[in-house]
């Protein structure tokens, strides 16, 4: 009944993730639960298609993901503003780019991106450390 937890991921991890996972894992990755956080900027919104594009810069590369906004409409798009979204990644067969089906799309313009990234990394490190400890015991 409850959806799966939306784990933090940076936008630039999405496509690499799925590519690296390879064919055997693709079925598993077909519906991938995650929350997307990070430097996301709404760059365009096509209301007739219910589709928004979020972009993010990382390591001098621009990354982008298409977001299906059907579930969160109507919403007031502010192009250029920062957003946080939470939803499921859907990677259709043969389609190179993942689509994120947003369950939540919140404008958080003005967020301290560096601090948010730090917080996400702290949390990841904490769990990584703990898993390692548990594995060692």
């Amino acid at each position: 009944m409850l959806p799966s937890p939306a784990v933090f991921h940076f936008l630039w991890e999405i496509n690499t993730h799925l590519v690296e996972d390879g064919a055997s894992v693709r079925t598993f990755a077909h519906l991938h639960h995650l929350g997307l956080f990070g430097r996301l900027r709404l760059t365009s919104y096509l209301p007739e298609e219910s589709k928004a594009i979020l972009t993010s810069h990382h390591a001098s590369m621009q990354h982008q993901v298409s977001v299906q906004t059907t579930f969160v409409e109507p919403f007031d798009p502010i192009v250029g503003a920062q957003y946080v979204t939470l939803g499921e990644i859907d990677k259709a067969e043969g389609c190179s780019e993942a689509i994120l089906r947003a369950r939540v799309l919140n404008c958080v313009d003005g967020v301290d991106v560096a601090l948010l990234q730090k917080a996400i990394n702290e949390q990841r490190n904490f769990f990584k450390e703990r898993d390692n400890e548990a594995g060692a015991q």
Partner: protein
Amino acid sequence: MASEQSGAEDEPPSLLWGLDPVFSAYARLYIKDILQIRESRQVPGIYFYKNHPLFQVDVLGTVVYKREREDFYCYGVDDSTGVINCLCWKDEKWRDQGDSVKGKGHGGVFNVEEQLRKLCEAQRSRCMLEIGDLLQVRGSLKTSREQREIMASSFYKVSDPVMDVQIARMLDMPQLYRDCYNKPFQVPCAELEAGTTDAGGASNIQSMLGQSVRILKEFLKVKEVPKFRPYDVEYLLHPLIRSPVSSTSTRQEATSVGPSFPTQVKNLLKETLKLLQREGEIFRKVLSPDELYHVTEQDKDLLAAIRDVIQEDSKREKYAEKGCHILHVLSSVRQRYSRNLSREALEVALKFLECNSDIISTTDSHYTVL
């Protein structure tokens, strides 16, 4: 007292729970942990994170699921590690909103009723959340139909337009775990300390514990005891407790203030056995009300079981080169011999076997036979 006895080894007795500050606080745990922590075997409704007893939690997360009933809302809250249901009761006051609308028309004049109505309205609006809103919940934890949920005692919508509340919490949590929740809760020491009533109790306890561990180890080794029950060895610790209060004047004091002599001995023995178990010197083959401890190095059946596992599995292709990994040995021996065997005990046994040249270690965690 009866329930205390039946509690598991790692569960501190319920009488002492109140001494743990976590118990009376709203624990700020990751939802993932809230879903996984085990319920107490002594008292339902109490949960244990490590050995911290707790029953109230504090959660902050995004609402990802919502259901409204006549008297309550049910919100699914997601903090990025897990999702949990929160039952949030509606306030009685909200029902009679109809007649409160009348109070209008006193423009400019400060009207208490009007202000109160506004306050209620504001309160109400913070309790009605939509999917995507940030929710802060405090409440007690319960398990109904195999599902963990939080019965909210207070809940409200958090306005967090630039995520600073969420970020601050994300930065706080790992620190909180390291400083508090992951540190073991050590009541029995405090309890013992109360018993001695002397100044400098803590160090006193530590040295007493050290002595009793030494005495017990020595005894087990010299007598080659294969197994024992606590009452078999209790008398060994008597001199330790008696000596500090040997003079008559202090004895009177101690008996009037602290716990009785048998309780002190029991507590000390309990701590000693716990330490020995942690070191792997002894273990309990089965967890039953009958407290029977096996001495690792003297347990012939255990040693044979370990030897057999390593002997058989080292022949398998998978383990031929390096030998068996300790974790593999552990799981096999647990299946074969005792589900309750700790890794520490296995390590003690492996070391013993290696000293006798029954087995050989190839790395610091792989073992084989010649």
